[in-house]
């Protein structure tokens, strides 16, 4: 078994004449909370879509938990959990009914036990019988994480997980992500814009710019490598500007 949770090699994606992703080679070791940073249109969502098997790559390879996203797509799907940026559910069904449905699709043999565990993990016990239509954005995000971890995936993909949440919601989500990583050993891959959040949550980062990976390192090493920059935000802007020290 490889030590890498995520490995990509020269991964590329083009839409017509537009190059959305260019020769992305990336390695994320197991147990990391990896933050992929980049401006709007940098290729972050395209990367997540390819890694979660939602989108075929134009060229290059990608492996999740040792399985190729093209030739072993089904094994990849058993190994990942995914929370899209705007998570939606079937509003006519209750939370439990939604989660049961997704658990069964992931081949979970005893959905009830796993749903209880997942709801506990996201601190959401007691909401199972509520209809999704009554949920706020923050509640939906937590329900979204619950659906993503039902089958205890090795890698959790979160696309802009804190987008649209209030400060309390952001703090709660951070607590859940760190707990999932530490207590269940899940590797977390997240796209985000909120750099202050990255400092508090992630163990390593990568920066995408116009479809190219221009930087990758641990958060601690990054903060140490740029002593003259006050925050990760300043470091990010510095790197993006193309003048690494």
């Amino acid at each position: 078994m490889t030590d890498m949770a995520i490995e990509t090699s020269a991964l590329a994606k083009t839409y017509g004449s537009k190059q959305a992703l260019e020769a992305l080679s990336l390695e994320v070791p197991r147990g990391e909370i990896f933050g992929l940073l980049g401006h709007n249109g940098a290729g972050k969502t395209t990367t997540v879509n390819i890694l979660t098997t939602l989108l075929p790559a134009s060229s290059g390879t990608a492996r999740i938990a040792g399985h190729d996203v093209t030739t072993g797509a089904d094994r990849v799907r058993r190994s990942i959990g995914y929370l899209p940026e705007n998570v939606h559910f079937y509003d006519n069904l209750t939370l439990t009914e939604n989660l049961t449905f997704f658990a069964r699709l992931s081949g979970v043999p005893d959905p009830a036990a796993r749903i209880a565990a997942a709801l506990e993990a996201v601190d959401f016990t007691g909401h199972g019988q509520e209809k999704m239509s009554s949920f706020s954005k923050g509640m939906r995000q937590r329900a979204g994480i619950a659906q993503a971890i039902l089958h205890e995936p090795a890698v959790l993909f979160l696309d802009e997980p804190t987008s649209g949440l209030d400060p309390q919601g952001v703090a709660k989500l951070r607590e859940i992500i760190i707990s999932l990583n530490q207590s269940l050993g899940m590797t977390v891959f997240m796209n985000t814009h909120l750099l202050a959040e990255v400092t508090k949550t992630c163990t390593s980062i990568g920066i995408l710019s116009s479809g190219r990976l221009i930087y990758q390192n641990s958060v601690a090493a990054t903060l140490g490598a740029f002593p003259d920059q006050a925050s990760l935000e300043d470091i990010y802007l510095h790197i993006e500007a193309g003048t690494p020290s």
Partner: protein
Amino acid sequence: MTSLITLCGKELRDLSRNRSVRLLILFLAVVVVLSVLVAAADFRTKTADYTSYLAALKASGGAVNAPPPDLFPLQMLRAGMEYLEIVGSLFAVILGYGLIAKEKNNGTLELLFTRPLARHSFAAGKILAALIIWTAVTAALFAVITAALLIAGNAPLTGTDFIRLIIAAGHTIIYLTLWSLAALALAALTRAPATGLVLALVLWLVVVLVIPQIGDTMDPDNQIPGGLFASLQIDKAHEHAVMANFTGYETSRDLIEQASLTKQYERPLFAWLGIKDQYNQQSPAFVWAGTFNHTLWLLAGFAAAAAAALLAGTRDKLLRKA
């Protein structure tokens, strides 16, 4: 197989709680039952007219030679069946579109397709759900229609009548599911499901209304109110003799009508229910011999729609972005 059943089960639960779907089905039931009540009222009006005509004739000392109006209970279903043909298929289109649109618009497709589903599980689950829904709805509608016939229409139904109703219901299930699957396929194939809906509505308009309307309008007997031959006082036997000289025209007209799957549904339906005079009170073997080719075409249409839905409802087609 498990994921197919899971998907189908979710779909049925979701649809059964959907207020719009429930309202549509209720509306369909109401118009179909109303049509039976109207037919019963119409029959009573005709009977009352006949009775008063008879009384007036007797009072004036005239001889009675006009026969009383015949009651063939299943013929009262004509308007109701036409509603299923037109309005039912329209609702089937909307239901089929909704099966795909809600997943696309909700963003739940991403949640589904990051699960280990077999290539056709998603579409097959939806197809099975559509078939089950229309089987249940048709069974309920026909049960209500039969009750309306028995109670409001005061119609005596025989054992054969019930078999005819079951066969008509079978045709209806195939016809309505066919429309849902065609709309499902179109909604899956178009990037914006709303485009698929309008394409499906255009298809519905052409197949259900325009083609049959052209065929109907070309029928010489439909050119005069009450019928051309009736206005010329020519009986059925002579009508057939005259029309035998126009086989070329009639064949083209028939081919135009047959291009519409609605006619492939209507012809066996009207034959089994005895709405079409030539099949009224005839044996099942006679009806089958005269209409089985239409039933087979209807089944072929169903198979084509199911295949289109199965092939269109795959991960790569539903998730494509460019």
